[in-house]
């Protein structure tokens, strides 16, 4: 069975950015990526166009099956059909380095219990084919309650520098304990807003240009991006959880995300790439050479 890695955190902290760079630099024999976010865009960050590839999200596949079922007057077995679709590759996108499966957006009324149940089933069916599985979680905590992955090897929480992130850590543990999700390692990762502006790893010129509106607003020092870096980093160290370091601010990530371009194209020696590699090494992962 593959090693199961889950990346979670509050909204907008950079979970998908981390997952994308994680996938790029880690070096397993076989890798499956799962985007559990209905509002997700992991595919795009990976440089994959699922529409063009003719691949369906789990939510789309379900709608399709249900629509067909109505035509056939209910003579069908949804989990069975979905299993067949997974096997036929209608849902699974195959890339050079990784395979990708996404939950997708549901347009019908109701919650994501059924799509989540289906993706759980699909994971169980194919997980043995992979040495490593990385799950990109949606923001919020509700997905945890549904226990899509009950046994996690490494759980990464990506944090922004606010008190809310600290409380978020407690809530994750509260829910995980309540619904009996187990994890072997609990890792904290600081996001780009922990980077001090005067930090040497930043391309200073780019920052000045990209944040011009902030600088005009009178923001001169590091506090725009950080809000008391040292204080918060010290706090994280005190939580008793393993803090692996921060993903450095990188204007190129911002630029690529605004344009919807793949993060696989960011130079390997850029601050974001370097720092994610460092974090992975810290957690004991083997990296691409």
């Amino acid at each position: 069975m593959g090693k199961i890695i889950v990346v979670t955190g509050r909204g907008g902290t950079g979970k998908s950015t981390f997952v994308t760079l994680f996938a790029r630099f880690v070096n397993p024999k076989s890798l499956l990526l799962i985007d559990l976010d209905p509002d997700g865009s992991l595919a795009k960050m990976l440089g994959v166009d699922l529409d063009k590839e003719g691949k369906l999200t789990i939510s789309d596949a379900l709608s399709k099956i249900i629509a067909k079922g109505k035509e056939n007057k209910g003579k069908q077995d949804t989990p069975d059909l979905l299993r067949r679709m997974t096997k036929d590759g209608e849902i699974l996108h195959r890339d050079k380095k990784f395979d990708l499966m996404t939950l997708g957006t549901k347009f019908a009324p109701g919650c994501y219990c059924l799509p989540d149940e289906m993706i759980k089933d699909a994971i169980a069916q194919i997980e043995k084919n992979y040495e490593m599985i990385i799950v990109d979680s949606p923001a919020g905590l509700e997905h945890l309650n549904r226990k899509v992955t009950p046994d996690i090897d490494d759980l990464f929480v990506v944090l922004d520098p606010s008190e809310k992130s600290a409380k978020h850590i407690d809530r994750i543990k509260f829910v995980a304990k309540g619904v009996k999700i187990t994890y072997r390692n609990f890792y904290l990762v600081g996001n780009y807003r922990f980077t001090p502006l005067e930090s040497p790893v930043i391309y200073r010129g780019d920052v000045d240009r990209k944040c011009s509106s902030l600088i005009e607003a009178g923001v001169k020092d590091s506090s725009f991006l950080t809000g008391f870096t040292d204080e918060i980093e010290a706090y994280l160290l005190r939580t008793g959880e393993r803090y692996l370091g921060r993903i450095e601010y990188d204007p190129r990530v911002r630029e690529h995300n605004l344009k919807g371009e793949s993060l696989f194209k960011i130079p390997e020696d850029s601050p974001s790439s370097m720092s994610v590699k460092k974090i992975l090494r810290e957690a004991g992962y083997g990296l691409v050479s």
Partner: protein
Amino acid sequence: MARKIVSTGRGGAGKSTFVALMSRYLKPPSLLIDLDPDLSLADMLGIDFHKERKRTIVEALYDAVNERKSGGSPLTPVEDRFKGMIWGDCVYEGKGFDLMTLGTKDLEGCYCYPDHLLRKTISELAKNYVNVVIDSPAGLEHLNRNIVSEVDDLFVILDPSDKSLHHIKKVKAILKEVGMMYGHFYIVANYLFDEEAENYFKDVGETYLGKIEYDKGVEQYNLKGESLHKLPEDSPAYLSVRKILEKARVI
């Protein structure tokens, strides 16, 4: 009938900040509802829900279920027990606004039931207020549950990324499919926008109301968990939110 206002957007865009800042300008009495299980609106308003001896919707629901199991007439349904608790236990009364929050659930399963109970009680609660403001959780799932089927003003808070554009499209598609009606659909830029990004979103065909200006105070107050209501009214964040609300004719 109260004016129903919903603030939504991608994670971390600044939905709760917008609601917290907005609440200062609303004509009282207003009811604020935090639908985010990762609750933070109360924090931003400097309210410690438990210290105030208030309970979240989820907690009240647990109590209603337990009470039914442990005693009292089995003929009283959970829903009625819950309704009996909501005013006394779940509504925090502040200056000019009241606050309710969904809370975090630690049982397996989704938030359909707590959301369902809210949907059933919201219209009754709304009768007592001039405004009802809903702070949505990140993600789109809550929209699928159609908690308020008729919204007056829907604000989508954007971060400067291509993903926000997709988010707008998805929000509209879901609203249409689940049959949620809205009077106005507004887009609002968050503090991370620069001119390039603003120009980009001005042309997407939605009513663009402007940008919530960057405000060091907001960041500092959030970090320390202090009420945003203590921030001076002439701070950049407040001035810009005020302008946005005037454009939307909320004030």
